């Protein structure tokens, strides 16, 4: 017990300690964090206040109906769940401190329990906010008796239980997924963001379905707001009474809070506590074996010996590699020109095209205007332009074409750095992609403005350019790594007859063919049957394929990086 408590304390306090290296940095960071929270709070205050007011009225109109209260409780839990899954994943299952905790003379279940407790404590904070914003105003609005408020703290303690169970169930497969990609921080981050967005969307959807859709056909809110609200609430209550019993611990809890006699309240309360305890036991039983498995996995792969005291896999490596690379290229006049000329060329070409096709003839209408009348213009034009731009983009981005040859004799430096070669290449590709992204953004904005495309097609084009650009740069980077031209004295001279720009054009050509192959059927279907969804499908499929291409190209590049780096003799 003592071990458990001190472990909880350690783990809980640890997450709020800044990892700053010096005391001064630490204080600066703490102040920064505090300011950030204040700003965040100020941003959310209006929302929270309006929610509270709305719920106050809800309480008033419904008169403290238990089913509405259950629904609100569930809403609280939804929020807790949403924010909690991430916390459970990173606090409990993704075991970063395995090597530290494994040496402690504490058994794994105790550690696991401590970690769950910490996750619970964290969820309590969210719960507190939701109770403050949702359950409290409801009670005030409904003029419920004192017992409701007396039981509110108990509710506060019990509300996180259900989200904990669900959270653990959801977090387990997700953590396994993330742990599988644990060595790739980019994919890991993307995964986390995607998961988060999905949960958010799910929550929104459920709330939308459960509550706010029901009253939509009941007349106009402006005619008679009171009656309107009552209508909605009646319907809502009806529906909720069917659903809420499935969240049985909540049902019991709210019954206890809104019940009429003391004995009934107590019975319901005890039953609710009992059910929640059972839930907790279930969570524990289900997730302990999983935790053990994860621990084993991390401990195995984490068998790497201690470094010379510093964490070599510090976060800023890729960013620093990119920054240094950028500095070097920009400051070298030859390389700088070669690398950034593309930034100017593409927009200039777009403007030129506009002047060629956009100027009105004698009749007063221009070619572009003629085309724009066609219903197929918005379907075909983006794809055609995209294909054209992909070719140009890929062939001209010197940053992405000769990333290794650019290193010249100092390539030995990269080879003796304690940084995985895959990361070095990633930094190079990202830098080239970033430059290309600026280029593409300008170009797309110009195209949308000049050629009258819908903005969302411009956005789709931009996305697609990025995926294709990233993918083909992975390929060209690998090709340059395979046989780099090192030991030059003049960069321009060195690039003459280099085959990489041809390779890039070839890759772009293949991409173009693939794009056309995907787009053509959809455009034909769109032309035949109409319906915007054909275009949506077209872009979704093609961007999906683009992402797939980028991912595969990146994997290949990363997989071969060490081998080809090893072969370079300097």
């Amino acid at each position, binding site marked *: 017990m003592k071990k458990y408590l001190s472990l909880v304390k350690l783990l809980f306090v640890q997450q709020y300690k800044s990892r700053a290296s010096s005391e001064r940095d630490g204080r600066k960071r703490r102040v920064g964090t505090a300011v950030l929270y204040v700003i965040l709070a100020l941003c959310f205050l209006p929302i929270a206040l309006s929610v509270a007011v709305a719920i106050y009225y809800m309480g008033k109109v419904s008169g403290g109906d238990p089913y509405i209260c259950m629904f609100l409780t569930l809403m609280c839990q939804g929020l807790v769940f949403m924010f909690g899954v991430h916390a459970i994943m990173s606090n409990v299952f993704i075991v970063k401190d395995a090597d530290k905790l494994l040496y402690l003379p504490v058994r794994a279940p105790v550690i696991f329990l401590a970690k769950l407790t910490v996750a619970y404590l964290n969820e309590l904070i969210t719960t507190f906010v939701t109770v403050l914003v949702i359950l409290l105003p409801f009670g005030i609005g409904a003029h419920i008796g004192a017992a409701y408020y007396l039981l509110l703290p108990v509710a506060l303690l019990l509300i996180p239980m259900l989200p904990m169970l669900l959270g653990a169930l959801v977090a387990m497969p997700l953590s396994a997924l993330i742990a599988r990609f644990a060595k790739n921080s980019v994919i890991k981050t993307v995964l986390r963001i995607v998961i988060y967005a999905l949960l958010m969307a799910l929550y929104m959807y459920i709330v939308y379905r459960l509550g706010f859709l029901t009253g939509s056909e009941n007349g106009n809110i402006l005619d008679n707001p009171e009656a309107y609200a009552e209508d909605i609430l009646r319907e809502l209550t009806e529906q909720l009474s069917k659903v809420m019993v499935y969240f049985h611990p909540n049902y019991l809890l709210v019954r206890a809070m809104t019940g009429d006699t003391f004995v009934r309240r107590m019975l319901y309360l005890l039953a609710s506590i009992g059910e929640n305890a059972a839930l907790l036991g279930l969570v524990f039983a289900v997730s302990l074996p999983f935790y053990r498995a994860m621990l084993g996995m991390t401990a195995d792969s984490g068998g790497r010996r201690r470094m*010379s005291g510093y*964490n070599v896999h510090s976060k800023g490596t890729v960013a*620093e590699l990119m920054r240094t690379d950028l500095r070097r290229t920009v400051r070298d006049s030859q390389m700088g020109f070669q690398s950034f000329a593309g930034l100017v060329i593409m927009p200039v070409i777009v403007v030129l095209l506009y002047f060629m096709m956009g100027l009105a003839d004698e009749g007063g209408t221009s070619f572009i205007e003629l085309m724009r009348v066609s219903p197929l213009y918005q379907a075909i034009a983006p794809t055609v332009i995209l294909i054209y731009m992909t070719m140009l983009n890929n062939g001209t981005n010197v940053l992405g074409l000769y990333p290794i040859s650019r290193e010249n004799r100092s390539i030995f430096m990269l080879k*003796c*750095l*304690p940084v995985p070669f895959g990361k070095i290449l990633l930094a190079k590709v990202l830098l080239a992609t970033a430059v290309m992204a600026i280029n593409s953004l300008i170009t797309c904005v110009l195209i949308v403005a000049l050629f009258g495309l819908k903005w969302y097609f411009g956005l789709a084009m931009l996305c697609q350019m990025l995926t294709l650009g990233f993918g083909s740069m992975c390929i060209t980077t690998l090709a340059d790594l395979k046989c780099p031209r090192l030991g030059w004295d003049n960069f321009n001279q060195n690039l003459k007859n280099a085959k990489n720009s041809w390779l890039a054009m070839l890759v772009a050509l293949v991409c173009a063919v693939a794009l056309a192959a995907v787009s053509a059927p959809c455009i034909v279907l769109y032309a035949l049957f109409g319906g915007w969804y054909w275009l949506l499908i077209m872009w979704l499929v093609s961007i999906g394929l683009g992402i797939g291409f980028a991912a595969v190209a990146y994997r290949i590049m990363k997989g071969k990086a060490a081998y080809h780096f090893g072969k370079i*003799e300097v």
Partner: protein
Amino acid sequence: MIKLYDVSKTYGKAKEKAVDSLTLEIGSGEIFGFLGPNGAGKSTTIKMITGILIPDSGSIEIDGVNIADDPIAAKSRVGFVPDTHDIYETLKGIEYLRFIGTMYGVPEAVLRENIDKYADLFEMKGALGDMVGSYSHGMKQKLSIIAALIHDPQVWVLDEPLTGLDPQSAYRLKKLMRERADSGNTVFFSSHVIDVVEKVCDRIGIINHGKLVAVDTLDNIRQSDKVSLESLFLTVTGEGE
């Protein structure tokens, strides 16, 4: 600690091995001098120790970490001063040092402290704001030396570190090598200047045509045959009487 076991390396299409079955062990707290005529394979050996080249056969361990098994961990323990000066010319000295520091994961405060300390020692403070391209040969050399030390490596590998340094800096470098060895680190450097090797090293190895032809402590060499290191060097490399 550095351990090389039966290490060989042949460059690309070359017929001769640049390094041939080299086995060598250098302990902690030791300064090891690596001698040999031009083209003997010194730089090649050093490049394999620092992870720049991969040996064709044999294994290399840095502080018990096999480079082939865990290159990142092994490399993070090594500080390397190359014999060429192909440092990023379009970076400022300070930017270069910060870059290296970040790559080795050195915390900001430590990084600042170490840059201060070593830049002071080699009188490079004023020059750190300038582009590396504008540095003299010796200044680049000093920058490499500082860069190799900012992550406080257990193994310090230097390829002909004294060429191009003025007497003052050379003296400070030698002192620094001694200090690092005394605090339990390994110092490995190559040279063909016998005087220097004689003054600084605890142990020496002589390599010729890629083969290690002699390894011993300086004391032993002095006591046993009453030969000078110079005559030993000339004998084993085939120039002696």
